[in-house]
């Protein structure tokens, strides 16, 4: 027996959902959804939970992550109750619910909190540079053989190797913070979806057997390709791969990426960097134009967090590109100052977006598919045993 909680709809509406209470439960949205299948139906069922305030049911549902928001449901909804935007809002809500710190919710429902946090982290980054790192007095030694700026040498008294190590240390610290929160949130998600699932118990061997799902879906975004318009998927895949490559280069193999000399254009370091930049930039442009023009169901409704994310990503990319070209052009100070600004944007973006906000979906989506496959396989096993 579940109690109906009428006020819950208002809570969801804080995360962006528009008029979803107009729904009259025809089921059209679920029926037109190319991704709804078998026991994992949405969006109507989830929308229904939201209307009725069945919080536990929503929190234990992987379905919001299984939706890629192609917008078919909203486009054809006879009551125009925007089930697609509803699912988007549920993802924001769930992100805030997986997050045990409570910060995520604050970032989502309050612009002041989110902007304040960004400014705070930016300030720390800039402050660290300002306090401890002094630019070298002799700019002559800062130009490398190719005529470009040596990126790791601009601090007085610190060897390039040491500089990279310091930055790497900073990256690792950030990665540790991000991972700590993200992993603990993921654990929370795992508890809600798999462990507290009342219907089935997942046997251990399934975790191994179904693990391929995690990697396959992370790498290919295969589900997204089942949505009607493959260009959505293509663009998203481009961004995802570009982002992953970039993240790997700056966090895992920084010394290989951030080199004193400028490699020839055929070098994989430059090639991969360009690929990632192009992908991310293209996506930013397409998405921003689409959100401004409100073309397509997906971009009709834009939450503050969506814009902040796009702007941060854009600024990060822009400063990254500037650093690159200032270097090639041998512009020493512009390179260094832009580099600091680049870090001052990149750091807060990663620290806030990855564990607490929009970018967490890079982890939650494949995990949700993995968890779903665990539950469904376990249920199938139980059914077989019963037979």
């Amino acid at each position, binding site marked *: 027996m579940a109690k109906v909680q009428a006020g819950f709809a208002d809570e969801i509406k804080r995360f962006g959902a528009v008029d979803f209470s107009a729904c*009259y*439960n*025809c*089921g*059209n*949205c*679920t*029926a*037109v*959804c190319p991704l*709804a*299948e*078998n*026991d994992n*139906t949405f969006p*109507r*069922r989830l929308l*229904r939970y939201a209307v009725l305030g069945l919080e536990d049911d929503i929190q234990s549902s992987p379905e919001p992550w299984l939706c890629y928001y192609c917008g078919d449901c909203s*486009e*054809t*909804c*006879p*009551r*125009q109750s925007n089930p697609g935007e509803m699912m988007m809002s549920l993802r924001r809500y769930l992100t805030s619910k997986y997050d045990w710190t409570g910060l995520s919710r604050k970032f989502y429902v309050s612009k002041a909190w989110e902007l304040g946090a960004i400014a705070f982290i930016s300030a720390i980054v800039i402050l660290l540079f300002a306090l401890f790192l002094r630019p070298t007095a002799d700019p002559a030694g800062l130009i490398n053989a190719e005529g470009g700026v040596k990126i790791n040498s601009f601090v007085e008294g610190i060897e390039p190797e040491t500089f990279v190590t310091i930055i790497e240390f900073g990256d690792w610290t950030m990665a540790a913070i991000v991972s700590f929160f993200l992993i603990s949130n993921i654990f929370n998600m795992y508890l809600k979806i798999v462990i507290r699932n009342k219907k089935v118990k997942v046997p251990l061997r399934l975790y191994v057997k179904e693990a391929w799902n995690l990697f396959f879906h992370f790498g290919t975004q295969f589900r997204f390709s089942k949505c009607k318009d493959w260009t959505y998927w293509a663009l998203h895949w481009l961004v995802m791969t570009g982002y992953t490559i970039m993240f790997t280069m700056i966090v895992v193999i920084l010394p290989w990426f951030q080199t004193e000399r400028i490699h020839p254009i055929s070098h994989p370091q430059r090639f991969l960097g360009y690929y990632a930049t192009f992908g991310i930039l293209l996506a930013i442009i397409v998405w921003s134009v689409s959100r401004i023009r409100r073309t397509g169901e997906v971009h009709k409704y834009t939450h503050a967090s969506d814009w902040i994310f796009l702007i941060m990503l854009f600024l990060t990319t822009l400063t990254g590109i500037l650093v690159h070209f200032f270097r090639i052009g041998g512009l020493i100070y512009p390179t260094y100052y832009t580099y600091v600004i680049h870090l001052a944007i990149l750091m807060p973006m990663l620290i806030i977006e990855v564990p607490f906000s929009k970018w967490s979906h890079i982890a939650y989506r494949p995990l949700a598919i993995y968890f779903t496959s665990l539950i469904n396989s376990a249920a199938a096993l139980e059914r077989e045993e019963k037979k």
Partner: protein
Amino acid sequence: MGMDPDRSKYDVIVIGGGIAGQESALNLADSGLSVLLVEKDVSIGGKMIHLSKVFPTLDCAACITTPKMSETARHPNITISTDSEIVDIEKNPDNSFSGVLIKHPRYVVENDCTGCQDCEDACPVIVDDQYQYGFVGRKAAYVPFSIANPRIATIDIENCILCGACERACAADAIDFTQKIERTGVTAGSVIIATGFNLFDPAVIERYGGGGFRNVITSMQMERQLVPTRPFNNVLRPGDGKMPDNIAYVLCTGSRDETVGNPICSQVCCMYSIKQGQLLLGSLPMADVTIYYLHIRAFGKGFEEFYQQSKGMGVEFVKGKVGTIEQKENGDLIVRYEDMREGRVKEAEHDLVVLAVGMLANPEAETLFMGGKLEIDEYGYVKQVDRLRNPAKTNIEGVFVAGTASGPMDIPDSIVSAGAAASESLSYLKRAR
């Protein structure tokens, strides 16, 4: 029949010769008023005459309409003008209404034609028969349908090739290609608008095939397959002429749907689908009939009982709107819907899908009056300005609305509403005197 040029003053002009227009005209004529009944089509009878049996009594629509049509046609106080429209209606300073009656040429002399159909046999042109909703063809010279009133020939000049075969075949010399549009000024003390409704065209719904699937038909096409004067003498699916044995009804096609601009309920689709379901179980005893619905709106007298009865007869009712229809190679169709009681998406295969199309406002009502003075409501229907006291009243004093011109309605409601319009019109005229 036909217009007597000397007779251009009437007590009331009734616009639309469907069931509501006829009922209004008869009520007024029985009360001693003179009525001009203007019908755009070549026969009176409106939509109802093309229906099969009607719910919840299951008597045939023709059995109810044809006597009413003959009564209307014969009534000494009623003048019928078919193939006609009335435009530029204006209110005069003395509160009477005047307008221009345009009678389109039929190219057949109404008084001479005997309805023998010799011209039809002779005509070499074949086009889609609009009265059979495109299932079969008809000639360019034709008698509209077997129970038309007047039951005389007409020439479809748009498709006619002017070969003259009909002229030669007509023993009564009734074919006259020299006929021209006739314009007559008419005046009346009051006007009743009974212009009816339009059917929703499902071609705009892409996920239901956009009109392209061979075995997806509209409920009106099914209605034609069920009437005695039907095109195939049996219920057949149009794709390959196979007798269907698993038929699906998709309710709320174009009704209660903001995406097609029609947020209101059409009031009749549930009941006519249930009725067609019962009739199909009668004519195809081995067939399965499944009705996919949102809410069954069986609200009228005897409707709920009729709904329960059809459940008892074995019509399947599935709660859920059909999301998509896909066509298989053999012409069978797969409908996808959500079973909300099980929390699952389901697909079901059917060999014939009937789209239960709803009612839309007939935009012609808006153009009747000079300067668009007639007020229209947010759904495009003639606005009832005093629904609780004078349900037939419009924004123009002396102009009343009857039947589906004011909103979706079933036949019993249309008839009662036509009675109300007639009564309000009569009282208005009596008070004015």
